[in-house]
């Protein structure tokens, strides 16, 4: 039996055919290394081949061991896992290539959005006490800063810095733009779209968003203002300066 016959016999035991070529290459490398070593220390080439072949052992025994190491189910599972990785990578490329929105609409860089500038930094405003954060639905909404500014015409303004966070990254943070209402201790109702106003600002990022709520044209120095999300059913009460807070 020469090397080729030995190799074919051993490899023939391996049921997972896609591995056979690699196994054959590895066995041949091993055999050739041994044969070269024998030649180097003075063996005749033919004798070196014979000894190296004998050292490889019984072809059937080696083949059965190789078959156990290269089980078909494991082999096919490996092939499948490679295919899945390739397919997923192609789908990502496909999103960029075929989606009408392209990479530009991907908001992964706005997962955590921050308001860049404080538009009221130049105003001389009074700081008020922040209400405690609340849990509403999948979100935590916190008021981090409350500022009050009284205009010369008797109208006052309230500015709230708000953060919204969620642990569910697939959810966009709550819309504060047009969904809020407010009522003060004098019974005045503040709505989006008509004076006296309440307007929120935040973007539709995921996980974390920093935004603001503004209540405009507050009159008659109310003791408190309650900011309400009518659909969500949550409220923030801000104690106002002036007349003093009512219970």
């Amino acid at each position: 039996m020469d090397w080729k016959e030995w190799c074919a016999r051993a490899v023939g035991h391996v049921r997972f055919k896609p591995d056979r070529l690699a196994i054959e290459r590895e066995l041949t490398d091993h055999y050739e290394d041994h044969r070269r070593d024998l030649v180097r220390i003075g063996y005749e080439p033919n004798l070196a081949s014979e000894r190296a072949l004998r050292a490889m052992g019984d072809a059937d025994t080696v083949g059965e061991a190789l078959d156990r190491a290269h089980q078909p189910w494991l082999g096919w599972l490996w092939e499948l896992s490679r295919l899945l990785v390739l397919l997923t990578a192609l789908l990502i490329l496909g999103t960029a290539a075929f989606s009408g929105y392209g990479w530009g609409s991907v908001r992964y860089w706005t997962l955590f959005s921050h308001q860049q500038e404080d538009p009221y930094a130049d105003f001389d405003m009074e700081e008020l006490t922040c209400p405690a954060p609340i849990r509403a639905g999948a979100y935590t909404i916190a008021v981090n800063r409350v500022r009050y500014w009284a205009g010369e015409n008797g109208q006052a303004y309230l500015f709230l810095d708000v953060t919204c966070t969620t642990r569910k990254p697939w959810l966009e943070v709550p819309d504060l733009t047009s969904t809020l209402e407010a009522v003060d201790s004098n019974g005045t109702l503040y709505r989006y779209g008509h004076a006296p106003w309440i307007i929120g600002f935040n973007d539709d990022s995921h996980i974390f968003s920093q935004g603001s709520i503004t209540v405009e044209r507050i009159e008659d120095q109310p003791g408190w203002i309650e900011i309400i999300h009518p659909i969500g059913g949550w409220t923030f009460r801000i104690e106002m300066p002036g007349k003093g807070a009512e219970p």
Partner: protein
Amino acid sequence: MKLTKLLPRLNRKQKILRNLLLMFLLLGFLWLVNDFSAPTLELAVKWKAEKYFLDQPEILGVFPREDGEDDVLLRDENVFASTLRRKRFLCFQEALEFFFAHPEEGPVVFLQQRDAFDVTAVYAYAELEGDVRAVCDLRLRSDIDASISDEREYVSRHFDWDETYTMEGTPNENSLYRFAFQRKYPKNHEVGYEEQLWQSAERSTLLDFQAIPRQSAGLDFACDVTITFYGESGEIIYVYQRELWNTLERSGES
């Protein structure tokens, strides 16, 4: 030195685990680049509803638009809203921002479609008994200066717009009516300037109409809706009337 030589040598089981882990990471990235869109409409609506603190949104109807997007009408107990379903790459789809209907005391809720580029329908949800069809009269009034100009000519005209659009509809299995909207002056650049001015005035009025749910329809605009519900033998079952917007008087004062 090859990178592969720097990496630890893995056996086949470890390679399978590595590939599966890599695949899940890539799937996460795929979802991320698709803006965390949902695989089904129901899920897309549910996720969007959470943004408005709605727990159990129920889809009342899905109606295709000409541009491949769909009007989606939904309710969550007493809250009614419309949204737009937009399909993205693969099975991903998203529901756009909700347009909420005005809270109603009676059995009928009037719903405007979420704006896109054109008004193609209005909707009504009716909790009535025996209604089989309805007629919707949408009266739009506006005070508009329309103008058209090109290299040769400048044409303008003032319109005291007052048009009523009459539409008919039948309810779906969820008691939702769709009233298909037909423009009186459809877009056509082949006609003369005078006709184009009418198109422009109508377009402007419809833009105001679309802005009502955002509460930004502005001045010089009024919109009234009347929906008459009929029974099987043609008898009137219910008449719904509502003034959706009116700033004509206010603008007159100013």
